Every structure is written in C-alpha cells, then in structure tokens.
C-alpha cells in the first residue's frame, strides 16, 4: 500500500502545503525586514530628501518628488499591514492542510505494532528509575548553570543592604551631615563676649583690667536695642528699619566699620510686617557668634548667619512672631548648635501659624523625619539649629506665652542644660536633644530678666516680687523641691542679676542695687543710685558695672561692703547691656557705639 495513489496524493498535498507555508513565511519576513527602509518614517531616501528641501525650500520638483515618495511608502505600509492580516490566516490554512495531509499519510504508512510481551518488568523499571535519577541530576545542573549565567550576565550597581540604600538616598536628598566643624574651645568663648552678657549669659567678664577712658566711638547706622558682641578683633551690633535689617562689624581697636550686611530676601518672609514698638525696635535680640559666623535674629522672624568676611552663610525665616511688645529674647550658641527661644502669643491655646509649621515640616523633610517634634498647640517653642547649615536639630513646644528673657546654657548635674523662662514655667532642656530635664512653676509675672547660674544655683528674679535660687539637679516637676531659697523684695523687672559666685547683685530699673548672699539669699546691703537703669549689670574682677540709661557708668565694689569705686559719664542714651572683652568695654548707645579701653594707637582700618 506504500504506492497507493491516495497516499501519493496525500504526500503531494502535504509537500505543496508545506512549500506554500514556507513561501508565505519568507514573504512576510521579507516584508518586515524591508520595513526598515520602506516605512515612511524610517526610509533614508525620504529623510534625505526632506533635509534637502530644508536647504532649498523653493524647489518645486523636489517637493513633488517627496510627496510622490511619501505616498507610495504609505501605500507600501498599508500593503504590509494587509499582508500581515490576510497572510496570517493563509498561513494557518496552509498548516491545516499540511498537518491533515501529512497526518493521514503517516497513518496510512503506519505499520501496526506487534509488541511482544515483556518478561523483566521489575528489573527494567528499576533500571529506568536509576537512569531517570541521573538525568534528573543533569537537568538540575543545567537549571543551576543557566541561573548562574543569568545572575552574572546582568550585574547590579544598586546597594545590597538597607544601610547602602540609606546612604544612597541620603546622598540623593542632600540630607547628609554637613562637614562636622570643630567648635572653638570653651576657653575661647569665655575669653570673648560671644552673646548677650558673655559666654554663659552670666555677665561676668574673663578679664579684670578694664579702663574707662574712651578709646573710640562709632556712629550707629541702624537703630536697635540689641547689645554688642565681641569675638577676637571684631565687635558686632545689629540694627534694623522697616526697609531692612542689618548686621554691622567694627574693628575693636579702631572702631572702623569693617562691613555691614543686610539680612534680606529670606523666603517666605513677607515684605510688610507690623512695626515693632518704638522701645523694642527691629533688632532687640542680641546676636550670638561662635567665632565663625555671627547669628542675628530680627523681630520680623528673619534669622541670618553671616560669615566673618561679611558674606551670608545662610538665612532662615522663623516668623511670623506674635509678640505685643516686640520680640526681644537673645540668641545663645553652644558648641555647634544655635538656640532660639521663640516664645510668643498670649497663651498656648492658639493654633500654630503657617510659618512655624512650615519650618518644622521643611526641617522634618530635610532631616529625614528627625524634626518630628513639631510645635504643639501653642506657637512658643525652643529651637536648636545647626550652626554651619541652619538645619533644624530639634525643637520643643513650650507651654508659655510671650517672654523676653534669654535662655542660658549651664553645665550642671552632669548635663548640659538649656534653661528658659516663660510665665509661669522655668524649664530646663537637655542641650543635645532638647529633652526636658525638669520644670518648675514659679513665675507669676511677665518675664524680662534672664536667669544666671552661680554658686550651683540658677538665680532668677520673679519681677517685682522675689529672687529665686533653684537647684538644677532635679527631674520632672520641681516646683516644690527645686527651690533652694526665695528672697522677697522689689526685684528688677528688666535687668538680669549678676553674680561673682559668693554674692549676687540685682539692679532694679529705678536704680536700686541689692547685694545678697548666693548661698541663702540673705541681703548683705543695698544702695540707691536713683537713676533709671535698663542695661543689665556686669562684673569684672571685683568691680560691679552698672550702666544707667542716661549714660552714667557706675562702678561699685562687688564685695560684702558697699563702696562706689567711681563713675564716668557718656554722652548718650543707653538701653543695651555693655560687652567686656580683650580689656575693652563696648557700650551701645542710641546714636553711638562706644569703646572704653587703652587708647587706639593704630590708624583706623578701612573697610
């Protein structure tokens, strides 16, 4: 039956169908390969012609040629699509015929099986099993090999472990730590006058040799009640008007203005903010410096860091600040962090203003979520910024309304504490992370005087009623337990106390000077200078300096017996506290900046 006509016919059909399929495949494959040059968007000729036309736009024949070519390329394209559609079906048909015919033919040629019975069934199955196991091992090897190839064929540059990802992301978001700069040694801070009332806000000068002859005077170029600060051979003051807020840098020896820099364009600071009261001014809060930059904060909420060469390092907007008398608390620098006590508002009830939350949010984002301690209900808060970058390190909401006292940083009870006053609370925070250490509910009046740390006590007047000495080693609420002693009396409402250690002196705004014993608060003596005093007193060596508003600088002996050493008169109006550094005293008046000290021999430096 091998040569039966049916079989031959079937074979023939199969062959023809197969050839047909092959042919069709070939055509379609060719069409697709030709597409590279025949598709209107790929054809090199057409593109070349179009470029040619760009060169000579008015070439009529060229245009017609392009149109022609474009047209038949589109024809070809459509034709190809047609072929794909119909060709597919044709191909299927061909294969159908092929398989049917071939199948039948094969069936015809098939010789019927005549299997012989198997004898060694068991053995063969065992043999087969072992053979299969080995081949399975082979398959496993192949799989493993191919996986290995895949693995090493496409290597990855992405980090393998979470830490790597963290680093990569940090790098991308630019949130990596700023180059850690070494802050100047504490001794350097102490030798200079880096903030309001000296390195620790205590108003005690490192040197003792202060003379009171006028070395130089320099005009004040912008009003402000902030006090001068001194670092090395530079003295800085800040001032501001509605137009702009500025920082001025003078040479200590000559009083020459080295530079002035405006802190402006601090987005999103609004252009117009309510004028602060006349007796507070735009620049009531004293600057701070760490010997690398000076930091100035103004009543409209602009914070600026300015390098010693007068260039702006960074600026930040912390406003708007809601303060009926105008913002006045001074800045504090400790190590690599800048501290701002941003107490404001009438109470903690108010919702946080956009500005403040925005700051928190921004900082949070920049810090990868480390700024999570966003201010709570009240707007008052204590902020710690990184000196180098202005990045938020931490901030803590404070349950107090507006206050005007400046925070101090003290090393006590084995911790670095930031002590901040605000009616009614005295709260100590850990300088490193802002965690609250202790708090005492002691203040019944609006707080203007700043605390000082002396003889192991935090000394703070509760204006008009009493002077308090707190032990800074408590934890939690220490209202009952923390108070070492409390001396009643008409204690100052503006100026801060000062203490050489054994004794503490206070000067009321009416000029009443009191001397108390630091250990128990017993009054030693008091005297009345009967003159108005707004500047806080300072101690240098055994001398207590009291600067009266009318320009009288009174020197008393800082000792158990009352004695006035002397006084000198300056032709100006003084509200700012003086600065003592490098054997010079710097006093900021309303119109002039005065320097008392050894006569300046050198010629004045030019800016």
């Amino acid at each position: 039956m091998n040569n039966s006509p049916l079989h031959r016919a079937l074979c023939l059909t199969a062959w023809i169908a197969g050839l047909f399929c092959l042919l069709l495949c070939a055509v379609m494959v060719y069409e697709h390969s030709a597409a590279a040059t025949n598709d209107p968007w790929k054809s090199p000729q057409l593109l070349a012609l179009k470029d040619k036309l760009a060169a000579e736009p008015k070439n009529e024949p060229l245009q017609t040629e392009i149109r022609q070519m474009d047209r038949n390329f589109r024809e070809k394209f459509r034709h190809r699509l047609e072929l794909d559609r119909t060709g597919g079906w044709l191909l299927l048909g061909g294969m159908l015929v092929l398989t049917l015919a071939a199948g039948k033919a094969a069936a015809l040629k098939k010789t019927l099986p005549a299997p012989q019975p198997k004898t060694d069934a068991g053995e063969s199955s065992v043999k087969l099993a072992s053979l299969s196991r080995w081949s399975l091992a082979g398959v496993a090897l192949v799989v493993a090999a191919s996986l290995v190839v895949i693995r090493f064929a496409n290597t990855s540059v992405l980090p393998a472990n979470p830490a790597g990802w963290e680093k990569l992301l940090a790098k991308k978001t630019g949130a990596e730590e700023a180059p850690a700069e070494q802050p100047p040694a504490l001794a350097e801070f102490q030798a200079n006058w880096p903030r309001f009332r000296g390195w620790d806000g205590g108003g005690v000068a490192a040197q003792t040799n202060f003379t009171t002859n006028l070395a130089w005077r320099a005009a004040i170029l912008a009003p402000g009640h902030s006090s001068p600060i001194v670092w090395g051979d530079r003295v800085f003051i800040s001032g501001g008007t509605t137009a702009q807020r500025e920082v001025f840098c003078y040479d200590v020896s000559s009083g020459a203005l080295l530079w002035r820099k405006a802190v402006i364009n601090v987005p999103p600071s609004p252009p117009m903010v309510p004028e602060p009261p006349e007796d507070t001014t735009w620049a009531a809060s004293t600057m701070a410096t760490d010997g690398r930059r000076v930091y100035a904060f103004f009543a409209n909420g602009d914070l600026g860091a300015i390098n010693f060469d007068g260039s702006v390092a960074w600026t930040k907007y912390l406003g708007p600040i809601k303060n009926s008398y105008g913002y006045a608390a001074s800045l504090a620098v400790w190590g690599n962090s800048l501290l701002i006590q941003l107490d404001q508002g009438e109470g903690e009830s108010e919702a946080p203003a956009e500005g403040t939350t925005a700051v928190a949010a921004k900082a949070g984002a920049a810090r990868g979520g480390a700024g999570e301690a966003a201010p709570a209900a009240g707007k008052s808060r204590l902020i710690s910024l990184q000196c180098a970058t202005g990045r938020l390190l931490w901030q803590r909401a404070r349950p107090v309304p507006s206050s005007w006292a400046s925070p101090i940083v003290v090393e006590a009870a084995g911790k670095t504490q930031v002590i901040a006053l605000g009616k009614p609370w005295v709260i100590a925070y850990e300088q490193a992370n802002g965690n609250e250490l202790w708090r005492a509910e002691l203040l019944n009046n609006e707080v203007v005087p700043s605390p000082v740390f002396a003889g192991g006590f935090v000394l703070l007047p509760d204006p008009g009623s009493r002077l308090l000495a707190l032990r800074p080693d408590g934890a939690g609420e220490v209202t009952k337990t923390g108070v070492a002693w409390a001396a009643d009396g008409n204690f100052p409402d503006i100026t801060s106390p000062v203490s050489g250690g054994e004794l503490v002196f206070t000067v009321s705004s009416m000029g009443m000077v009191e001397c108390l014993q630091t250990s128990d608060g017993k009054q030693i003596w008091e005297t009345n200078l009967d003159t108005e005093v707004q500047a806080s007193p300072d101690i240098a060596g055994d001398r207590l300096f009291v600067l009266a508003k009318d320009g009288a600088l009174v020197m008393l002996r800082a000792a158990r017996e009352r004695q006035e050493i002397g006084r000198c008169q300056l032709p100006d109006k003084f509200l700012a506290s003086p600065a003592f550094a490098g054997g010079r005293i710097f006093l900021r008046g309303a119109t002039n900046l005065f320097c008392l000290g050894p006569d300046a021999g050198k010629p004045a430096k030019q800016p």
Partner: protein
Amino acid sequence: MDPTPPLDAPVTRRHFLRNGARLMAMTGLGVAAGALATRSTGASWVWQLDPAKCLHCGNCATQCVLEQSAVKCVHAYAVCGYCQLCTGFFAPEPNELTTAAENQLCPTAAIQRAFVEDPYYQYSIDEQLCIGCAKCVEGCNRFGNGSLFLQIRHDRCLNCNECAIARACPGDAFRRVPADHPYLLKTAS
C-alpha cells in the same frame, strides 16, 4: 510524586492517602478562593495609559502585540488652541503651512487639518492610520497646550493579561484599572 506506598502495604492505604490529599487540596483551594472572594470583583480590569506620565518614547507603536498598536493619539479639543501652526501637525521646520507631505510631522498622515475660521484650524486623528508613535504628542506638548495625547483604544486592545507596552514603558505610565473607567482624558481646567 506518585505517593505509592511500599509493596507490602494494603491497597486501601493508597486510597486513604489519595483521599486525604484530595481533601487537603480542596480545603486549600477553598481557603484561597475564600480569601480572594472577599476582595474579588465582579467587574474586570483593563489597561490604562496616564498621559501625565507618558514620555512620548515611541514604544507604544513598536511594542504592542498587535501589528497596529491599540494605543492611538486622541485629541482633547477643549484643550486645543486651534493654532494655525500646530506643532503636532507641522514638522519643526515647515516649508509652508500647507498639508503637503513635506510639511507634515505625522509619519502616516493620520492627522487631518480642517479650516474653521480665520485663523483657527481644527485637528483630528484618523485612527485607521494612527500608529500611536506619539511624535505629534511630543510636538504638541513641547510647544503647545498638550491637547494631543496617547490613550489605549479599548475597541482594539486585546487586554492581554500582561501588556507588552506596559512592560517596556519608560515612564511607568500604564496601569490596570477597573473596566468602568478605562480612559484618562485631558480636560480644560
């Protein structure tokens, strides 16, 4: 995988094993089905192209399993500026502002330009010709209002279980969405 027990075991044990296996399998399926049934949907999913993410890379024209892509350019007329010089229609350096082949941008001349009134022209897409190459989309977005953009045309889309274009999309613009809102059209806001 044939859980045939050793020879000496009674035949019934094999049945027992098998029934146990079946029971386990059924419960497994039941649990899976139950877990999914809580979240499963009677509707189906379709693929959607987000024009806001589209990068106009041309993959839609080349990657679709269909010979002529199911992705086409569509025109949000309300967004169009009806420009006389439509940068989606004319080549960057048009010889003159006519519909002549040498001035057109579209490789398949799928955009029709109709005069409305001076100086406004209306542009519409011939889907028979459009291959979804996004050349015009790029032109329109780069210079114009972006009224031309790509969409999957669901009368053509086979709704493959895995969309070949989505796999190749550099903009990650393709999403599975419930079939009741298959389109994402631009509107004048």
